């Protein structure tokens, strides 16, 4: 795994410190936006594990994000909040199971096929969500209560409070970064990176690559489910667009814009893209036009993303 250079590491550390201290001096209004960005960063890092490290270009990663969100909706009763420590593991397990099932099917294909098939499976979930009344149909469903983090009577934090939610999102982003850092450094991680480079050779050396791809797909799926769970808690709503191709394209764009194959890339990409979207959409009703043109320009001019730009600026 390419390790960022010293100066970039310092820059990242400074960024993390800023986020840590932000609530002390920043406007409360931005807490929600930043929490949203950090959850998108978790989602994008999980996709980067597939795209940037294992070389699996998935256009259907929203499937697991959506499953995480819908799981929370189903587990939250109309009477009161669900318990975080009970419902989160269930939501993660649901996303993981979905990843096993979809992975078994899609990982048989590769290249262009993989891209189309992953998109098609998310689309299947999209129509499933639209057709089912118990999932709220095409309008989606509200989640009236954010999950409660009570542990035997002790409540370490309260997700209802924007400040607490912000800390949790920051912890999730940092935690996902560290988890993936450790995983990518492990024996498993070395195999995953080698799959992108030369899968056939790996098999001829004696490694059954399919099951490594599947496990990788499931880890990425569970992390996407984690992001979906908290995103739906934040918005208080889930709808079929959680599975939509627009979100799938957006999160893929975050990975590329930030710099795929690095862990900090998706984080930088999430901040850059979401902040850009936010300012464009304030400026004009037709913000998707400049957004589309920006994406085209960014892909043509910055194939290695912001992370690549930083490394170049240093050199």
């Amino acid at each position, binding site marked *: 795994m390419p390790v960022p250079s010293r100066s970039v590491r310092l820059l990242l550390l400074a960024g993390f410190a800023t986020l840590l201290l932000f609530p002390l001096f920043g406007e409360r209004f931005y807490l929600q936006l930043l929490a949203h960005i950090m959850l998108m960063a978790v989602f994008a890092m999980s996709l980067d594990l597939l795209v940037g490290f294992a070389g699996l270009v998935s256009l259907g990663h929203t499937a697991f994000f959506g499953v995480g969100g819908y799981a929370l909706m189903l587990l939250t009763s109309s009477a009161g909040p669900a318990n975080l420590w009970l419902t989160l593991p269930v939501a993660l397990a649901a996303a993981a199971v979905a990843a096993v099932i979809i992975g078994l099917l899609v990982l048989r*294909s590769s290249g262009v*096929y993989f*891209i189309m098939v992953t*998109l098609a499976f998310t689309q299947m979930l999209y129509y499933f969500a639209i*057709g089912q009344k118990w999932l709220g149909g095409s309008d989606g469903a509200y989640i009236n209560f954010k999950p409660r983090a009570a542990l035997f009577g002790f409540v370490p934090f309260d997700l209802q409070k924007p400040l607490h939610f912000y800390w949790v999102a920051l912890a999730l982003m940092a935690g996902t970064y560290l988890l993936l850092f450790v995983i990518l450094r492990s024996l498993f991680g070395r195999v995953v990176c080698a799959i992108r480079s030369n899968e056939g050779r790996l098999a001829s050396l004696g490694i059954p690559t399919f099951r490594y791809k599947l496990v990788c797909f499931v880890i990425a799926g569970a992390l996407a489910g984690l992001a979906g769970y908290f995103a739906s808690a934040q918005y208080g709503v889930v709808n079929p667009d959680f599975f939509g191709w627009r979100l799938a*394209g957006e999160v*893929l764009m975050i990975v590329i814009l930030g710099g795929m194959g690095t862990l900090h890339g998706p984080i930088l990409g999430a901040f850059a893209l979401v902040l850009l979207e936010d300012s464009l959409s304030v400026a004009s009703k037709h913000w998707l036009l400049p957004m589309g*043109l920006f*994406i085209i320009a960014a892909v043509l001019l910055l*194939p290695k993303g912001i992370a690549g730009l930083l490394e170049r600026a240093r050199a």
Partner: protein
Amino acid sequence: MDAIVFFLIQVLNGVQYGLLLFLVASGLTLVFGIMGVVNLAHGSFYMVGAYLAYALTQALGNLWLSLVAAVPLALIIGLLLELLFRPLYRRDHLYQVLLTYGLILALEETRSLLFGDDVHGVPIPPALDFSVPLTADLSYPVYRLWISAACLALAGALYLVISKTRIGMAIRAGAANREMVQLLGIDVGMVFRIVFVAGVVLAAFAGMIAAPVATVYPGMGNAILILSFVVVVIGGIGSIKGAFVAALLIGLADTFGQVVAPDFAGMTVYVLMAAVLLWRPAGLFGRGT
């Protein structure tokens, strides 16, 4: 008796939908197979066609006249877009996906600027605006039959071009093996241009003739794009025959899905796709991996 006629109507609807889908998917599968380009914006060409039909019918007062004007316009749009796509040929699939994703957003928003976000209707040409009675209370609109006939005629023409002409031979060779085209001493750039522009025109034409029955609405290109993907996956990349069979299959599955299991409408085609993938990972007419 009514049950049988009802069934027949669904079959006709399914076939008509499938044939439209074929016009869109045939270009998509060739662009994949020959140029190796994943084009998410292919569905937008269908949308462009529908909006061209809408705008020109407003201006000229008649769908026939607007078809005559719109096809050359689609051709010109195709030629211009081909210039934009040229840098994509040698790019990684990932970048093709994102570039064409950006293109969808830009095209969709341009449409919104020009036409707004309302649903528009295009009148059925008066000459075809009647129905054939099937029983006492069931009848079938002639315009839909005409759509099927037009698509079949185009599919037949496509078949003739691909199986009988020199350029068709190059296309077939290219779909089977891209390097082969070079070996045959054919100008690869020319083959690409023809395939791409033909794909744009076919998709746009499908959008034009579908406009009177399907209406013209925002996001119409994306729904058909993803179904076209499914057609390509089921039929096998680069196979026109596969696209034809798969498109009919999808058209029928989707139509009957809506009737038989409305709660799961829209899902049927994906279940079908999953089943085909389990059975034949490279599609019905795809080359094995």
